[in-house]
């Protein structure tokens, strides 16, 4: 399935809660403020659950973060976001 998280890991439990119900076969897509989880120490805890971490490039770019994401996280644009939704279901949003 596809999990979409739109909140920063700092100060909001959405990502932490999502990770409890996510497994290796799932895809985790970070959008809006959720993109901050693709930076620094956070990706480790995500990758421990699933290798399939995606981050929305338009939201990364808006925040000046393009080029700062962990190399194991893949940036996708809105077309890629749509494609992920076609390829995986159900789709659950965490906010």
């Amino acid at each position, binding site marked *: 399935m596809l999990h979409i998280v*739109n909140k920063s890991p700092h100060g909001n439990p959405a990502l932490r809660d999502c990770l409890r119900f996510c497994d290796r076969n799932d895809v985790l897509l970070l959008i809006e403020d959720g993109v901050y989880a693709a930076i620094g120490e956070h990706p480790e805890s995500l990758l421990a659950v699933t290798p399939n971490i995606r981050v929305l490039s338009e939201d990364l770019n808006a925040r000046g973060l393009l080029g700062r994401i962990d190399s194991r996280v893949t940036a996708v644009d*809105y077309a890629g*976001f*749509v494609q992920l*939704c*076609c390829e995986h*279901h159900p789709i659950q949003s*965490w*906010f």
Partner: protein
Amino acid sequence: MSTFALLVLGAPHSTSAEQSAWHFSQALLAAGHRLFRVFFFHDGVQCGNALQLPTAAGTAVPIRWQQLARDHHVDLVVCVASALKRGVVNAEEAERHQLGAGNLAEGFDLSGLGQWIEACILADRVVTFGP
């Protein structure tokens, strides 16, 4: 080709929900998929409030959804229960409750959760944009 139904739960500007949903809608339509219905629920009902002016960034929120709906035959539904208590009212409800004029933007329908469930049933993919 897939059919999508979108749920929008955030008020415009205060959250990114509407903005993300709109960009997602553009992308799915550009890829040749169908957008059956967008259901505005919780604070998302404010997207259907006609009394919104555009920001410097561009078009007013209800107008860009109207354009999308017109160009691609998308159903825009605002949840009636959520809307009435938040002050988004169509002409009929405004008259019924003696509120003066309604403010539901043209192109949006006021209806119940049944419309959202119908969309979930008919769509291949259902995506929620939360606040």
